[in-house]
């Protein structure tokens, strides 16, 4: 799945990124994400602290979707641009957002 396709299923893009998405992961504890997320993943969370970008960069996460209408702070967006990690936001909760992506065949 192309990163841009997340827009087509209703997620609002905050900044674009690079690469393809083959997997999905949902968790708010960054220590868990670092240990378990696979490369080329779209990650769903409510955690917006700037550390999410470093965790994404380390694990090879390509896109982050911030659920429940939470907002990224400016520092997080700037860091994401630098690391070329796509950011999206949504008013859906994590479960609902996962469902949409799961329907597209992402596992």
């Amino acid at each position: 799945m192309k990163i841009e396709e997340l827009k087509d299923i209703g997620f609002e893009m905050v900044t674009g990124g690079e690469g393809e998405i083959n997997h999905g992961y949902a968790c708010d504890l960054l220590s868990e994400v670092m240990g378990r997320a696979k490369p080329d993943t779209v990650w769903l969370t409510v955690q917006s602290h700037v550390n999410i970008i470093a965790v994404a960069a380390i694990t090879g996460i390509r896109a982050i979707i911030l659920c429940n209408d939470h907002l990224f702070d400016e520092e997080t967006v700037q860091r994401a641009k630098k690391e070329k990690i796509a950011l999206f936001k949504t008013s859906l909760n994590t479960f609902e957002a996962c469902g949409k992506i799961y329907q597209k065949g992402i596992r």
Partner: protein
Amino acid sequence: MITGDFHVHTCLSPCADITMVPNEMAKRFSYHGIEWIGITDHNTCGNVKVFERVFSKYGITVLPGIEVQSVEEVHVLGYFESVETAEEFSKVIYSHLPDIKNDPERFGYQLFVDEEDHFTGTEEKILASSTDLHLDELFKLIKAFKGLFVYAHVERTFGVLKQLGFIPDNPPYDALETIRKIKSDKAILKSSDAHTLDQIGTSVVKVGVNHRTFEEFKRALERRLVFIDEDNSRSYS
């Protein structure tokens, strides 16, 4: 060297035992020879004044403190120069807590206490919740009250390492609390985080200062004059 424990809860913290009342706690600290105590309840300083009064009768000094939960669900210890400053800070934190009523049967009782260990009332608002403050906002707020910002139990649940994977470059914390050996250029505290009477004495540090004042504590953190006394520490977690 002064023996201290700078992370201790009272009966006002929902998750602490209701036996965490001032005279009973003071007796335990005296027994273990611990003479400098950080009172750090969850998101409140409501019992600090009473504990300072009672502990002083036992020759124990209270370092006024609090354990605040940030938006990231990271626990941060704040320490202040006086009870009055801590109470003012506590009022601000109160306004950053959600307007949810505590359910004592689910989350635990939040009890105010007097100098004779009698319960005088309950805190109705939920204290076992996150404030709406981001870590950098919380840092600025603690600093506006001239306080110290210390990451609590960094590797445990609600610790910065667990929540955020690693310690962010900003804000520039004053110290961190850990039960493991962690390398850091900042001072490292090892504390009991006592929620029950029998956890008192499980962890102490030796502070290389002569006087039990906030200024000396601050200086001890800056100069890393805090030492972990392995012989007298028996970790429970």
